[in-house]
């Protein structure tokens, strides 16, 4: 079965990104497909590559990046929500005249249409947030 997943709260402040991660891993382990995970609201903050949590803590962004690499997940960060919160990929940074970008490997920035498309193309949607 195909599952679409939405993460709509920020890492470390809220458990949503952790719960979603464990859920996606369990779904993949059971042979389901997770074609896309969509990050919205403060959930977009998961995608910053500049996060440096203490070494004895989980690294939420790295966990997602590694899972995406291993399982071919499409991690989509909502562009409108990301721009409000200062998350830019290299293209966007250049287009907006900013001197830095901060999107981690494995994540890509795209539009809200990707969320609707995920709802259309998957069998179930599960939302994690506050």
């Amino acid at each position, binding site marked *: 079965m195909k599952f679409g997943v939405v993460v709509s709260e920020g890492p470390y402040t809220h*458990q949503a990104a952790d719960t979603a991660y464990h859920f996606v891993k369990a779904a993949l382990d059971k042979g389901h497909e997770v074609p896309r995970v969509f990050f919205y609201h403060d959930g977009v903050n998961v995608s910053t590559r500049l996060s440096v949590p203490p070494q004895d803590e989980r690294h939420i962004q790295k966990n997602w990046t590694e899972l995406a690499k291993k399982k071919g997940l499409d991690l989509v960060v909502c562009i409108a929500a990301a721009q409000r919160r200062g998350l830019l990929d290299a293209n966007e940074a250049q287009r907006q005249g900013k001197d830095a970008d901060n999107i981690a490997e494995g994540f890509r920035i795209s539009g809200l249409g990707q969320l609707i498309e995920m709802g259309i193309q998957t069998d179930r949607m599960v939302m994690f947030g*506050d």
Partner: protein
Amino acid sequence: MSTLHIVNKSPFGHGSLLSCINHCKSGDAVLLIEDGVYGALSGSVVEHAVTTCAPSVSIYVLEGDAQARGLAPEKLIGTVKPVGYDGFVDLVAESDRTQSWL
């Protein structure tokens, strides 16, 4: 046609659990995750609402979240069923849709 309702907030500070219960249909399932697991505590002011939820609504609690918060199995309402993440996945697959009470 059934819904898996997912509740992630403590019922003692938020109305989500009660609102969810008030919109459940027979045959639905409710999964308590994150701070929502406090809704599974026996002897609380919401126990009655949880146990008298619409007929044949099953209530589940995500084990890892309950354990993390020190909710021992014997502290939980007897009819609440503990599940792991794999059980969570099965509940999603078995339901026709999920609704998160964010």
